[in-house]
């Protein structure tokens, strides 16, 4: 591990940041609109990873093409979760959504464990193993794909929220549910769609995460922590902030792997997230 070449970890960190931002999108949307932090978010992303894995190994279909299947499935799952679990949970009490999300998290983790065993899996396609070269240094192709996909999805989502009536209704409901209702917005239905859209981004994130890193049924906690950290650093409500948050965490991870070794990277990441929570919960960019 040469100490002269910072370029590699920095570029890797930035690219990784795109993926982390993508993972955080769904969490951010659910919180922004429904004011609920979905503790099961990470596990839902892993569920999508397993879904893509299944598409590849059982159907023999390329996982990115397979998104044609995984996206609708995750969308429906999202709508069902909001409709039958979360919307009821908020009426019960303050701790109910947290506890139910926690229960959901474990149900998903253990379902995955039963179906796929605790063995770690990876989504390996021909191109996910490839590398590309910049300035004579080698980088995994997956990292580049992650970054590009991250940016594309974020831009698409931003335009959707700004230009379509449905998107505007989602933004409006996030800002002021009562006023939105007075505009004729069916906020109950908006919540379903918001969760569903969050799950669409989770499907994409899960697929690309699965191509980049090996995953196990318990990876969800890690993804949740990273997604949450990203959202916190970026400050809620700002898509640019989420993107920057992802990049910052990506850099923290790659640079600490570079300087302190691979074992330390996750620990440093966690410590950084706890520190931000402790000292600046409103994030670096938040309002």
């Amino acid at each position, binding site marked *: 591990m040469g100490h002269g070449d910072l370029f590699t970890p920095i570029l890797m960190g930035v690219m990784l940041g795109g993926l982390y931002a993508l993972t955080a999108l769904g969490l951010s949307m659910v919180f922004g609109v429904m004011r609920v932090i979905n503790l099961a978010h990470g596990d839902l992303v892993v569920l999508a990873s397993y879904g893509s894995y299944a598409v590849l190994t059982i159907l023999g279909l390329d996982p990115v093409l397979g998104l044609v299947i995984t996206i609708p499935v995750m969308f429906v799952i999202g709508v069902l979760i909001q409709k039958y679990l979360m919307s009821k949970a908020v009426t019960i009490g303050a701790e109910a959504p947290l506890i139910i999300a926690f229960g959901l998290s474990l149900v998903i983790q253990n379902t995955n464990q039963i179906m796929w065993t605790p063995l770690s899996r990876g989504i390996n396609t021909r191109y996910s193993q490839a590398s590309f070269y910049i300035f004579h240094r080698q980088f995994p192709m997956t990292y580049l794909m992650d970054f590009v996909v991250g940016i594309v999805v974020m831009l698409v989502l931003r335009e959707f929220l700004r230009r379509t009536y449905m998107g505007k209704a989602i933004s409006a409901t996030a800002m002021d549910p*009562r006023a939105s*209702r*007075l505009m004729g917005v069916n906020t109950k239905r908006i919540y379903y769609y918001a969760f569903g859209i969050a799950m669409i981004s989770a499907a994409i994130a899960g697929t690309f995460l699965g191509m980049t890193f090996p995953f196990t049924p318990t990876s969800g906690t890690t993804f949740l922590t990273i997604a949450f950290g990203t959202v916190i650093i970026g400050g809620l409500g700002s898509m640019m902030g989420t993107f920057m948050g992802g990049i910052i965490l990506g850099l923290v991870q790659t640079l600490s792997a570079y300087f302190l070794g691979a074992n330390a990277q996750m620990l440093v990441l966690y410590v950084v997230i706890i520190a931000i929570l402790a000292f600046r919960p409103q994030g670096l960019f938040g309002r």
Partner: protein
Amino acid sequence: METEPILKIENIEVFHGTFQAIWGLSMEVRRNESCALIGANTAGKSTLLDTINGVLHPATGSIKFLGQEISKLDPFEIVDLGITQVPEGRRLFPEMTVLENLIMGSYTPNARKHCKENLKRVFELFPKVKDRQKQLAKTMSGGEQQMVAIGRGLMAHPQLIMIDELSLGLAPIIVDEIFRTIHQIKAQGVTVLFVEQNVAKTLMEADRAYIIETGKVSLSGTATDLRNDKNVHKAYFGV
């Protein structure tokens, strides 16, 4: 002139949980008039507006709009039928521009069809709003926000527009300007129901008024009659 009420409320009782806010209230709003609800802060006026709009539902009683029973409908259905509320405190979407707020107002299918013509109408009624359409809503002054809020209400293509606490926090000169615009809106065929604490002003501007006290109608009549009513004078003007 024959005026059939476009909104007819009969004997409704409304609860906030176990607390009863409205007791056996009946009233009506006639087409093309400006009708006022006057009363103290906790009298139940905002609750009444929320109930008409479907945010709350009456435990008993009926609310009929254009002959149709609406007391059990959801807010978005009632807005589509033609009733819109300009809520207390304006409640604009702070991070959206003025234009985006207005367009958000024409969300329902019925309103969307008339979006362009309503936008033109709002800009004609409120030239200041037209000038500031690209500004973020939260950067506007109180008076301007109220104009945007009313404009947003009009974008829903309503037959009845309900305005809650119109003059709250606004300078008298702005309030006058807004009331002038309300007369224009009325002239264009929209019925106006508004809630006010400023009794004297209201009785100058409205056609008819209801005085609400502790969730019941205590007095009602044309503005002229009420202006001359001894009880009103005693209670609200101290004379």
